[in-house]
């Protein structure tokens, strides 16, 4: 089974607003309001540009943030992808 690809249409169907270094989001389809702390906005931007699997997203995220790519970074990306899928801002497959 190939590793799942994640994609998003963020920020469509959303109202976003920067506040205290975070991104405040009103998501119209769910009617929910979320605070997104980094690295979520950066992850969403990368996925909006090109759907990717977790490995490739980790690579481009670490490149964007100027961070060494390691197992811990991969774990954080995987965990945050689950969070984003949970609130419906990211879709699997």
């Amino acid at each position, binding site marked *: 089974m190939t590793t799942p690809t994640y994609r998003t249409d963020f920020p469509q169907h959303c109202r976003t607003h920067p506040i205290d270094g975070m991104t405040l989001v009103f998501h119209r389809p769910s009617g929910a309001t979320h605070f997104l702390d980094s690295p979520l906005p950066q992850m969403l931007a990368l996925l909006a540009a090109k759907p990717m699997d977790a490995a490739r997203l980790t690579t481009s995220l670490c490149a964007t943030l100027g*961070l060494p790519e390691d197992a811990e970074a991969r774990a954080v990306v995987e965990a945050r992808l689950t969070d984003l899928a949970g609130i419906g801002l990211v879709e699997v497959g």
Partner: protein
Amino acid sequence: MRNEDDQPEAERPAAAAPGEAETAQTRRAMLRIGALGTAAVVTVRPGIAHAAVSALTCQIPVPQSTQPNKWIKNNGDVVNPNTGNSYPPPSQPLSGEDVKNSLKYGTNYPGYTSQQTNAYNNYIKKLTMGKQGYTCYASLQSPSRQ
């Protein structure tokens, strides 16, 4: 809302050498140790009508009334009687007032030991929507949700 100072000791970043301050800052951003504590996503949850019905007049049955003759383990799980480190449940549902005080100030439930109180509170913290007592528990917390 969790802020910096009451963050659990384990997650506090190690003091970075001055030269790496910048990377530490980005690493901190990466590991999202931000104003919202460790949660990268915080979703606004509706305040269950605590204003309408004072939390203090509601009650929380431990465990669900559909779970007769079960005991409560110290981590809050509902188990069969006499399971290792578990306790018989309280004979009466716990009042909102007692639960609020116990969660806030650590007071024991009247007539029960601190181990029993701790087990019951762990059970209560695992309550989710739809479970008996959830509305009462939710209204005890909001708005200062820990």
